[in-house]
């Protein structure tokens, strides 16, 4: 029972992080119908910015305080993501209004390559550290229930906590504020939203900024776990099955999808993996999604599209 629970918890934690990246996809898809392939590149870009700003800014200001340095770096990186959102809207997507979905997808693919390259030109292409002071030591839970207790990584626990708080905060923002309402309005019907005076382009900048914020948080957490390097951009590939599984338009779907994939990956690796000689973690998500799609083509929580004939 002990190893099973340990794997389960580990899966939930990494699932939470997949959810974060998936959330970025869903936010943008809901509000503008664009499947944003660049979400992974945004995670890398944001993480690079955070890593380098937390070196540069304290040096520039001559401050020793790590907390202050990290806070300033986070704010600066966020500001940068807002600028990126603004540029994407005004230079790319704003000019492609009413184009086919595939055109927009290709445009975000272009943005992916640009951000990957530009980020590394700007911030360098080494492996960088983000140290936001998450405790690295493991801890043991329920030692009196199981022999030896459950080994849980404290860092994972904090990360999952941050991710959960972010998801709850964003949901509340979307549900209860007037800007959140405007975002949902645009997601439902562009034309009607315009007719009641909602400015589309500003809403899109806000959506991309929020997606940038989510990318930044995801980037900081992954970066502090694994270091900031190019491979971070590839977390998008991990989040892809999550969004498909959860349904492209559902925020709860992204979260639950993330958890399912996270848990599924870890459990399958430990318990089924040996049968295949291991390494199934990498493709397990995709296979899982394949089966779900056979049964529910719209994903677990996606809107069922019913066409009137």
């Amino acid at each position, binding site marked *: 029972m002990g190893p099973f629970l340990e794997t389960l918890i580990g899966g939930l934690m990494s699932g939470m992080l997949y959810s974060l990246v998936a959330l970025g996809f869903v936010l943008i898809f809901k509000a503008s119908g664009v499947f944003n392939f660049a979400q992974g590149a945004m995670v890398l870009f944001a993480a690079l910015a955070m890593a380098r700003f937390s070196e540069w800014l304290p040096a520039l200001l001559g401050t020793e305080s790590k907390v202050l340095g990290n806070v300033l770096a986070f704010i600066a990186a966020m500001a940068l993501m807002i600028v990126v959102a603004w540029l994407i809207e005004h230079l790319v997507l704003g000019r492609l209004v009413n184009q086919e979905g595939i055109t927009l997808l290709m445009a975000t693919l272009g943005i992916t390559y640009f951000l990957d390259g530009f980020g590394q030109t700007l911030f360098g292409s080494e492996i960088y550290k983000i140290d936001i002071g998450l405790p690295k030591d493991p801890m043991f839970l329920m030692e009196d229930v199981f022999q030896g207790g459950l080994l849980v990584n404290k860092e994972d626990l904090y990360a999952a906590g941050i991710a959960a708080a972010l998801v709850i905060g964003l949901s509340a923002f979307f549900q209860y504020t007037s800007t959140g309402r405007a975002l949902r309005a645009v997601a439902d019907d562009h034309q009607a939203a315009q007719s*009641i005076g909602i400015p589309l382009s500003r809403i899109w900048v806000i959506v991309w900024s929020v997606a940038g914020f989510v990318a930044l948080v995801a980037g900081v957490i992954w970066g502090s776990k694994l270091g900031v390097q190019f491979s971070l951009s590839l977390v998008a590939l991990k989040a892809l099955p999550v969004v498909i599984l959860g349904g492209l338009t559902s925020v709860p779907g992204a979260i639950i999808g993330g958890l399912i994939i996270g848990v599924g990956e870890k459990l399958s690796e430990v318990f089924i993996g040996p049968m295949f000689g291991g390494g199934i973690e990498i493709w397990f998500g995709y296979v899982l999604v394949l089966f779900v799609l056979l049964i529910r083509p719209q994903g677990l929580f996606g809107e069922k599209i019913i066409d009137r004939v």
Partner: protein
Amino acid sequence: MVEKAIGEVILDIKNISLRFGGVKALTDISFNVREHEVRAIIGPNGAGKSSMLNCINGVYAPQEGSITFRGKTFGHMNSRQVAEMGVARTFQNLALFKGMNVIDNLMSGRNLKMKTNIFQQALYWGAAQREETAHREFVEKIIDFLEIQAYRKTPVGRLPYGLQKRVDLGRALAMEPQVLLLDEPMAGMNVEEKQDMCRFVLDVNEEFGTTIVLIEHDMGVVMDISDRVVVLDYGKKIGDGTPDEVRANPDVISAYLGTSH
């Protein structure tokens, strides 16, 4: 009931022509709308009624002509700018925010009246919270007015068609518009729903003094509630006047009934 005073010209449409490629949707249309009146646009299918409304609303940009609203002339404006000037609309094919409940749909109509910024809202504290409460009170008045109290929290996608039309009207009313454009507000309704909708439209006009421009197919309705009527056929204006004048107009009769050859 006070006799309503029809005022000055509030909306003046001059020589509007609209083409889609080679198709002439509207040709040289001019008419005006006076403050506080109910102005109907009628015509057979494909006459260009919705195109006309979409020009006023800024969805289409006419190639020729001008639209003057309260003395300000504009050739090309987008829907949002028109909304800012105080023009609201409803849609022929419902365009509600289906995932949201009735209250949220109506609250979204208040969006232009909201002044707090996104950061205040993110904290949901102080000004943002007060603002939300104030607008909610206004929305409740609309809900009472339209008699949809029982459906406050229902996602609009689940409401029957007639009620969705009412929510659509409510969302437009939430903007406190000076001019309300209604695109076939009674299409697809049964007699009872039509009567309700007529009553709401007239009440809006009388109680709030809102100027109303409406497109409608039901001749009985149009002749009953309109002060003046414009008749379009094949993108051209063929009649303009009070319901009685229009009814007597031979061009209008032939457009609707066909001529004997």
